[in-house]
């Protein structure tokens, strides 16, 4: 087998294994609750019969490993089971139908943020690395250090205060529904997307800068400079082919970072995404929804990191020419 293919396959199977362990961790978090979930919700005054009934209703009366395989089997087919809310009533809420439209909204927001953030941070990072220790570099560096250290909701409220309240360029609340037209959706999601952009540009720009500086210190770059190659060609022909791997890592790492940032930003702007759904479900302790959201977030995170690794392997020039 080709060495690249073999390494990629190895990495993919390792990723699947991690995903499997994470799904067990997420599922079993409920099992470790001292006293059990049903007893905890019903309180100390509940009779054993009430607890047993409640457990039966939630399906918690069967052994854990049976429920795990049912759950993970359903997840593989896109079915996350029934939500705890409205279980006893006539209307059953399927977790999948609750999550699907919100997942689309979150995906929409994250994509918008990525479209803004990736080119911007690459340009900032590369230029800061090229003009290292200049005034420009110092300003960009300390600004990004400050943005990294600031909570997302501070940036979000600051932007809302100025651009939605003082100047009224945007709406302060990004309420959208399935009936919202595309252009309107983009417009309403702009302010949250800018917030997310500011948060991840800082990380991405600093990592790009570090990667490029590291690269420019290599002997073959010095060699190219010494033999009189044009500065532009040094970057494009010598530095860039080797930079794809670190840049891909940086991008994927920060898109994974979006997963966390999106929760807070959605709550600030009341944007109906999966992050807000998770927070609401945590308050009502609706476990099927919480576990489904956690699994989706964790899976996105793992897959993005996996993707970065695969890109790094595939673009590594050393692996392309095996000895």
């Amino acid at each position, binding site marked *: 087998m080709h060495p690249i293919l073999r390494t990629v396959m190895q990495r993919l199977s390792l990723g699947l294994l991690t995903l499997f362990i994470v799904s067990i961790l997420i599922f079993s978090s409920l099992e470790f*609750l001292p006293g059990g979930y049903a007893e905890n919700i019903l309180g100390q005054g509940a009779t054993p019969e009430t607890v047993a009934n409640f457990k039966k209703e939630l399906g918690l009366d069967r052994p854990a490993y049976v429920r795990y395989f049912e759950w993970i089997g359903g997840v593989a087919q896109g079915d996350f089971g029934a939500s705890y809310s409205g279980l006893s009533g006539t209307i059953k809420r399927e977790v999948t139908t609750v999550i699907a439209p919100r997942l689309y909204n979150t995906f929409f927001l994250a994509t918008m943020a990525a479209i803004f953030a990736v080119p911007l941070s690459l340009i900032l990072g590369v230029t800061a690395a090229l003009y290292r220790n200049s005034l420009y570099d110092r300003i960009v560096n300390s600004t990004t250090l400050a943005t*990294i*250290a600031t909570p997302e909701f501070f940036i979000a*409220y600051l932007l809302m205060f100025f651009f939605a309240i003082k100047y009224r360029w945007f709406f*302060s609340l990004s309420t959208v529904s399935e009936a919202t037209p595309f252009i309107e959706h983009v417009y309403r999601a702009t302010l949250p997307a800018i917030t997310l952009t500011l948060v991840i540009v800082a990380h991405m720009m600093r990592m790009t800068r570090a990667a490029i500086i590291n690269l420019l210190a290599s002997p073959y770059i010095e060699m190219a400079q010494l033999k009189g190659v044009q500065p532009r060609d040094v970057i494009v022909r010598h530095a860039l082919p080797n930079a794809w791997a670190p840049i891909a890592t940086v991008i994927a790492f920060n898109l994974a970072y979006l997963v*966390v940032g999106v*929760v807070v930003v959605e709550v600030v702007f009341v944007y109906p995404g999966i992050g807000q759904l*998770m927070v609401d479900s945590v308050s009502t*302790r609706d476990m099927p929804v919480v576990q489904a959201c956690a699994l989706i977030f964790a899976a996105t995170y793992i897959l993005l990191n996996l993707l970065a690794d695969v890109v790094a392997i595939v673009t590594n020039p050393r692996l392309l020419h095996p000895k």
Partner: protein
Amino acid sequence: MTSANSADIRAIKARRSFAENAWRTLKSAPVSAWFGMIVILIYALAAIFAPLIAPYGEADVVGGAYQPSSAEFWLGTDQIGRDIFSRLIYGARNTIGIALLTTLISFAVGGTLGVLTALKRGWFDQGASRIVDAILSIPVLIAALMLLAVYGKSISNLILILALLDSTRVFRLARATALNVVVMDFVEAARLRGEGMGWIVFREIVPNILPPLITEFGLRFCFVFLTISALSFLGVGIQPPTADWGSMVTENKSLITYGNPTPLYPAGAIALLTVAVNFVVDWFLHKTSGLRDEH
């Protein structure tokens, strides 16, 4: 002649007291580090002497709801008429205290396990490292949200959950740095001398892994502090009536739509502290590791 010289050098070095050395180091600190240290000092004073500084009590209803800032209430009052300035000062005590406690537990657990696994190796090391790898692949905020849903929201649950989640990061660093020290000759020498486990850990290994761990402590504190603030802001962290910056932002967030910047004060208080700690850590990192951008 060399012995005479080195004796002189030692004498010169000994003439400076610890305080003088500390002052010399501080004098060379850049402006950003000075700014950071002064801000941290102010926050620490506010947290320690909160009852003396704050004009009103933490949960006292002292006026009407949503009063604008005046001579009586410097930053106005909140939704049930508590003085926002007083709550900001008490918030320093609660928020920083809880974050500090969480980070300390996280370092105690993660650091101990990390050093022990580096010393022992074997199946215990393998098992612990694999579990930690799996936990690391779930974002902390998401894992914390899920665990809070399972165990219910309370301050003690919040501290324990975040400390355990965060200790995985500390474990990784402590184990990696300790692994480099464990193979050194002086550890081997101590073992051959017949020193006990406690001596080897605390006299041989810990002093040598301390600088990276101290830097990490600053960064982990910032991270824990931001995560606790985010969870409180989302309404699942520190619960009212405890004054806390994250939940204060949520409590007053409706004000911002009327052009009132009140929610920005507690959010800004959080931002200022984390920026300050980051500046100091940045400087410490440069000092201890000799890390420079130049190649």
